[in-house]
């Protein structure tokens, strides 16, 4: 399958992306399913994680290193 793009997508970038997407799909699926289930239990709307801004991301949860002062 050739990707016809007017920008150079980068063959390494395409390959990495396809592999990573495959690996991410599994936890993403469970997070969405479980997240939706928990929301329904709570009487929420069961939104997909794509629109769920309330749940702290792992990055935010460990933001200590992101916010440490730089030189």
């Amino acid at each position, binding site marked *: 399958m050739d990707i016809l793009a007017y920008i150079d997508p*980068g063959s390494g970038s395409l390959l*990495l992306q396809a592999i*990573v*997407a*495959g690996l991410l799909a599994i936890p993403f699926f469970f997070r969405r399913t479980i997240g939706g289930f928990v929301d329904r239990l709570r009487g929420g709307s069961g939104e997909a994680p794509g629109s769920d801004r309330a749940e702290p991301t792992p*990055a935010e949860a460990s933001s200590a290193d992101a916010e440490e002062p*730089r030189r």
Partner: protein
Amino acid sequence: MRETSRGPSVEPASFRDPSGYVFRRDGVLHRQVQAAFADDWRAFTDGGLAASLIADGLLVEHEAADVGLAALPGAAAVIRPRELPLISYPYEWSFSQLREAALLTLELQRRALAAGMRLKDASAYNIQFDRGRPILIDTLSFEVAPPTEPWPAYRQFCEHFLAPLALIAYRDPRCALMLREFIDGIPVDLAARLLPGRTRLRPALLVHLHLHAGAQRRSTRAAPTAAHPTPRRMSALGQEALLDSLRRAIEGLRWTPGGHWTQYGIQTSYTERGAASKRKIVERMLTVSRPAVVWDMGANVGTYSTVAAGEGRSVIAFDRDAASVEHHWRQLSAEARASVLPLVMDLSNPSPALGWGLEERRSLVQRGPADVILALALVHHLAIGNNVPLDRVAAFFARLGRRAIVEFVPKEDPMSRHLLAARRDVFPDYTLDGFRAAFGRTFSIVDEAPVEDSLRTLFLLEARPSA
């Protein structure tokens, strides 16, 4: 602008994407859609994606125009997009502005996927700040694509957004200036080399930058026969998961400006009475000038940008200090953002013309002139701090604005004394009379008012027609 005789002129930055061209006809901005792209365009407009993005304020509005108005052969459609008052570039944005533009790009791709289309590029230059919100200005960015194909703009997204944001968050805010050199984004291999090793412990940065750089290295080392590799297919779920991962990566990047900007608010030599007097004079000078567009050239955290923003004026608030601009942007309310846009700009080295033929990205001067520029508490920094002779300061100001409100800060002022403390006074002409003489060459002095309870003087100047 740049229109030859009476004919249409194609915008010099509009050449990378062959699906259409931006041009001006009689000064009005148009965009033509090429026949080869007509199916995608129809899917985008007839399928409802365009209308929903416009309704939600994510895409700039446009109206249909007669196809006969096309500037180049091969057009299937012509549209007239709403033109924004100022085009700004990613190297002029603060951290949060770049972050907001990144999140908009991901949201656009998410909504495109849901509509059976995709964003075919993820250029930061396609995003602009309009009335305080990021908005896509490239209406031809969407194409029909099978959901099983990897996203061709993945690399561009990482280089235009993720790499600079990670470098600012983990290394230094000055890394944002690298975007001025790398106008197609910071290469992932360079970002991976510059980022501290601990970023490998963050899964999203490990994958999208560090492993990404490794994958690129391996692919360039591969045999040339692999010029058209066969990437794996992606599932629709995989597409969503990838976008979700990128969104989390962007949202996880934080930068809090160091404490030094907080000093700015108190680092003024004005008494309460002096500040009130200055404000009153600036308001009066603005009122008589009746500007639509004001450029505040040393806005700091925006005290006088807010003053200038009254009466429906559009204010661009420039400052050289990324921390001040970041702080200014964060503290503006949604309503205030509609009329004030803070941008990073070092007046002693302003944004140049860049890119192919030096025409892709326009210089600061090419994007002006403003109706009025504000240069408050600025001239002493340029003249004493940066050794620019006053007549040259005046000549440059005349290229930036039709009128200028300039504050003269004499040598005896505490702030000037501070600048002169550790150096020889080589500025014999830096006096009130010297200022009048130097600025009088390029401007006529419309009004002059001393600020009460201070040593400073405010001038309202009008550029001479020849300037």
